[in-house]
């Protein structure tokens, strides 16, 4: 993981692979005099046992309190331990990139969806079918996330849709920064859709906002009805569940009702559709969901723009 720009070892197709040799080699030649004379008389004591409890910090995010060191003041030139208050969410950087992506997508008038699932649930097949059947009605672009290979992007491109492959290398999920690089490579058409196919992983992608309008979790009927209970975070973070490979149901002991009940226990607001990317069953319901949500999203965006103009 590169700690300089946060891009991990990921590479975006068509761009030079980031190479940060000597990743922590940047010299810090800052010459801060640190001679602010204000003394803060906080009665802070930081003893080794870390028994300090700071009741109700009222610092704004990233508020830094220089004067709170053990001696109350910081004197230039003297090496002294000091306490720096940070109060920052570790995901704040990702969320910041996600908000940038969201603003870019809104400006382009693009409705973005983040597809998450375990490996092998049929995400790519689902996207290939959806693109083939929707491309005459809507412009669609795709960002593909995998640890290695550009096989999925090639499958998507065979449908005629533009696709960018992001290889996360060691990474187990796409983050908003990678998707931002992906957006640089795509020409987004107004009123179109962006499908982001996340790395096949039912755990980590749940925590990373990419700037999408909705997460869609894909589960296949060959996986077991209790997946929503085993991996609750992903089902809690998603707005739609696509239960895929429905064509196989006659050959399995999979209980659709139990599976959906488990999912709804985790997330009562989750919408659920039963589909098959192979036979096409249920896909028209998915398209209706897509178009309805995209229209609602566009309306909300234009209302927001009008409200801003009026102000």
């Amino acid at each position, binding site marked *: *993981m*590169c*700690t*300089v720009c*946060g891009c*991990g070892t990921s590479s975006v197709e068509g761009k030079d692979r980031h190479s940060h040799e000597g*990743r*922590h080699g940047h010299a*810090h030649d*800052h*010459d*801060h005099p*640190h001679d602010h004379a204000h003394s803060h008389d906080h009665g802070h004591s*930081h003893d080794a046992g*870390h028994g300090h409890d*700071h009741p109700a910090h009222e610092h704004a995010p990233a508020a*830094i309190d*220089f004067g709170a060191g053990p001696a109350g003041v910081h004197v230039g030139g003297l*090496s*002294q*331990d*000091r*306490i*720096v*208050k*940070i*109060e*920052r*969410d*570790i*995901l*704040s*950087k*990702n969320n910041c990139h996600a908000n940038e992506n969201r603003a870019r997508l809104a400006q382009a008038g693009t409705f973005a969806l983040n597809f998450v699932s375990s490996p092998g649930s049929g995400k790519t097949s689902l996207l290939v079918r959806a693109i083939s059947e929707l491309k005459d009605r809507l412009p669609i672009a795709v960002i593909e996330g995998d640890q290695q290979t550009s096989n999925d992007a090639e499958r998507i491109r065979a449908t005629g849709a533009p696709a960018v492959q992001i290889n996360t290398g*060691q*990474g*187990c*999920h796409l*983050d908003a920064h990678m998707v931002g690089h992906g957006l640089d490579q795509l020409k987004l058409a107004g009123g179109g859709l962006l499908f982001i196919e996340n790395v096949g*992983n039912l*755990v*980590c992608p*749940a*925590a*990373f906002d990419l700037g999408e309008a909705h997460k869609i979790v894909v589960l296949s009927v060959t996986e077991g009805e209790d997946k929503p209970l085993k991996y*609750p*975070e992903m089902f*809690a973070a998603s707005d739609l569940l696509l239960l895929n490979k429905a064509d196989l149901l006659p050959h399995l002991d999979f209980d659709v009702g139990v599976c959906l009940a488990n999912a709804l*226990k*985790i997330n009562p607001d989750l919408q659920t559709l039963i589909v098959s990317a192979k036979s096409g069953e249920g896909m028209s319901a998915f398209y209706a969901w897509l178009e309805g949500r995209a229209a609602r999203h566009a309306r909300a965006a234009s209302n927001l723009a009008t409200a801003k103009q009026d102000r």
Partner: protein
Amino acid sequence: MHEMALTGSLVELIEEEGRKQGFTRVRVVQLEIGAMGSVDPEAIRFCFDAIARGAIVEGARLDIVVVPGEGWCLDCAKSVPVVERFGPCPECGRHHVQVTSGEDMRVKELEVE
């Protein structure tokens, strides 16, 4: 596994703060991790040792405070402790509990020189 990425962001955030504030060494990092945040403190520790190498946090002590989960039970209409995400309310046994705290993961403060 995403603890690796999170720990990377943590170290990056501290380096950034170091550049801004001119400290070059960190002795103690105090982290607050919500019990409901789907992050394993032990995994963070493991990743931290690996990622901190060569950075200004190398050798720093990691103090992790786990913030217990709390939720609002819709049926009891009050705050209740939550130990398991989407688990039942400890009082009424029903599953209508919305997690209200214990999901965050933040750097509280640093002891630096």
